[in-house]
């Protein structure tokens, strides 16, 4: 055991515990931020209400009531929407008052126009103040549209000769069918054998097409959280934003804690205790190591407690690989402790250190994906993120928590974090030793 190290760490831990207020802030703020994210986007104890209950109003035009019911049922069952029906005036009022996030406006004669080949325009009115929810409706609707358009394109490719009539009103039979004149259709079928054959032919193909649409080979499936968890095993995607935000915030605030603890070295210089320590039997290396160990212990604790709170409050799946979670937390804390210790020793005063570490933490937080996933950034910055230590911590946590992976898949990240930790610590001790030789360590 390195002489005096135990005494130093014990003293620093005791001091940290006496400063419970500071620690509590670093613990509470990430939870609070995650909570805010939670009520903004939903999930966890806030129920599935956030995303899944987008208030949507539909103006049905003259859709037959059977279809109306089917549509409403389908939308409700998806779990994403709370559907109401209204006429266009009422829909406009609901959306402009913010009582509905969006209105889906189906034109009169929709079905008839569709089957007779006329262009159909479905409108979506969005509440600009509810961009996220309205955006969800829009993207789902766009998906559905694409699906139908693909289906139609496929139909035309298969049966080009069977293109729907180009001009409106030319096909009397279709007009008759949907225009409430079934007699005229029946008369045509009876009197014109060619028309009858063609019409039956078309009906048959139409039925094939309809079946294809009913059981599409490619489909957009929307799952809510329960489905996803039930199907977990091989499921790889979660819609729960806490899975991303809580570990990201935990790492970010752990970085602040590590900076605060490295700052203690400057505090000890200012209170002259550092000078006193250095006239004692300990080397600067031991003093630095003591600060490092204290920071590793406190920062690991902070991460673990935060993640455990996340598990309790936001149903974060933290329990699937507890050993891996512990290893990642300690490795992340070790890397942070080293980086900030070295950073603190580069500058001479606490003020300078504050400025430097704030800029550093914000930059690394941004690049490393603590504010939003790095995939959202342009590729060049994405690669810049790879050199930040917090990127590796975030990545390992998201592998464990979001993707439900185990120790094996986070081992590379743990190795990277420990490499940063060792290099940073050696650098810090080297700088400190040089300082002491020059007589400016304390």
């Amino acid at each position: 055991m390195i002489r005096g190290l135990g005494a130093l760490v014990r003293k620093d831990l005791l001091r940290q515990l006496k400063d419970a207020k500071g620690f509590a802030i670093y613990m509470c703020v990430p939870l609070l931020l995650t909570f805010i994210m939670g009520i903004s986007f939903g999930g966890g104890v806030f129920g599935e209400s956030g995303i899944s209950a987008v208030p949507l109003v539909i103006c049905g035009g003259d859709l037959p009531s059977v279809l109306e019911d089917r549509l409403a049922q389908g939308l409700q069952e998806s779990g994403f929407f709370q559907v109401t029906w209204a006429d266009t005036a009422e829909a406009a009022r609901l959306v402009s008052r913010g009582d509905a996030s969006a209105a889906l406006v189906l034109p009169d004669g929709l079905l008839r126009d569709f089957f007779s080949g006329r262009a159909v325009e479905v409108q979506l009115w969005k509440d600009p103040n509810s961009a996220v929810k309205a955006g969800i409706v829009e993207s789902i609707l766009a998906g559905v549209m694409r699906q139908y358009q693909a289906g139609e394109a496929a139909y035309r490719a298969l049966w080009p000769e069977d293109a729907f009539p180009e001009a409106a009103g030319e096909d009397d039979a279709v007009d008759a069918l949907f225009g409430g004149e079934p007699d005229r259709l029946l008369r045509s079928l009876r009197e014109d054998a060619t028309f009858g054959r063609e019409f039956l032919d078309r009906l048959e193909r139409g039925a094939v097409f309809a079946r294809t649409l009913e059981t599409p080979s490619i489909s957009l499936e929307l799952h809510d959280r329960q489905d996803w968890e039930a199907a977990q095993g091989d499921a790889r995607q979660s819609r729960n934003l806490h899975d991303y935000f809580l570990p990201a915030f935990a790492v970010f605030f752990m970085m602040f804690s590590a900076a605060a603890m490295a700052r203690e070295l400057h505090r000890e210089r200012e209170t002259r205790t550092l000078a006193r320590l250095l006239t004692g039997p300990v080397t600067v290396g031991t003093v630095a190591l003591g600060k490092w160990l204290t920071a590793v212990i406190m920062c690991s604790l902070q991460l673990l407690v935060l993640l455990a709170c996340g598990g309790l409050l936001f149903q974060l799946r933290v329990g699937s690989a507890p050993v891996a979670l512990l290893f990642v937390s300690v490795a992340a804390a070790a890397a942070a402790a080293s980086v900030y210790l070295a950073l603190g020793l580069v500058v001479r005063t606490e003020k300078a250190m504050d400025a430097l570490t704030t800029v550093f933490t914000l930059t690394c937080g941004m690049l490393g994906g603590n504010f939003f996933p790095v995939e959202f950034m342009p590729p060049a910055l994405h690669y810049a993120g790879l050199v930040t230590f917090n990127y590796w911590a975030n990545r390992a946590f998201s592998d464990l928590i979001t993707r439900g992976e185990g120790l094996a898949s986070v081992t590379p990240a743990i190795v990277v974090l420990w490499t940063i930790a060792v290099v940073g610590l050696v650098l810090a001790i080297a700088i400190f030793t040089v300082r002491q030789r020059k007589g400016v360590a304390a």
Partner: protein
Amino acid sequence: MIEVHELVKTYGAKVAVNRLSFAVAEGELFGLLGPNGAGKTTTISVLSTLLPASGGRAVVAGCDVARDPQGVRERIGVVPQEIALYEDLSARDNLLFWGRLYGLGGPDLKRRVEEMLEAVELAEHARQRVGSFSGGMKRRLNLAAGLMHGPQVLFLDEPTVGIDAQARKKILDLIRRLNADGLTILYTTHYLEEAEQLCHRIGVIDRGELAALGDKEDLIRQIGDEDTIRFDLPESLLPEFAEAAARWPGAGAVSHARGLAQLRAADGARILPEIQSWLAARGQSLAHLEVERPNLETLYLNLTGRALRE
């Protein structure tokens, strides 16, 4: 126990300690006396291995400060000029820490902590946060922290600055006791009377240089055994007076300050009648007469040319 040879310490162009040499024997209580900025703290910093020397050599408790700093650190205790304690911890936790740092532990450590708390009369405040202590209490704890591990040599850097007379007496008594138990002490101060009362020998330091060295009698002998006589004299008469005084047996240097003539003389009493008759011949009378026996104060003033703060 402490040997200092031609020690030099510079901060850039500033020479803080210039070719300082002195030695402190085992069991001695040595005073380093000097005004602000004289280089006392710098000297202690070099001797306690906190600062590397720019020149010269120093050996403390048998270890060379440059070659074996670790050996020095094991054997010394340092009580810094500024309070160096953890204010967020209690008095006891502070002492426990400094004890553990030197490898103390178990019942020995506990006993030592209680002993030191008693010695500095802080036992009742052991559990109190140091941040809530008065200046005097902090000073005493600061001293106790430097004693926890029972050092062979103790460096005390102005341990009584800024505290009241009662607290000061307590600290000085403790220092005397420690020294009586055989502890070698280097004590710096800018209080002349402290050095005079407390120390066996005194080194007077000014602008980084040793101006005088020895026990009280040695130092007084250094300024000669001359009395100083002061009396009213218009400045215009000074040259004539100096001329006359030069012929008187035993008379020394003549100077003038704030309307007073000053004459150094081997025996003040014998020369007074001469002065009186010289003044009478010029229609003056002897007024505001002061005769001063030689003391450390005059020595100190002569050496450092500066009045003390207090």
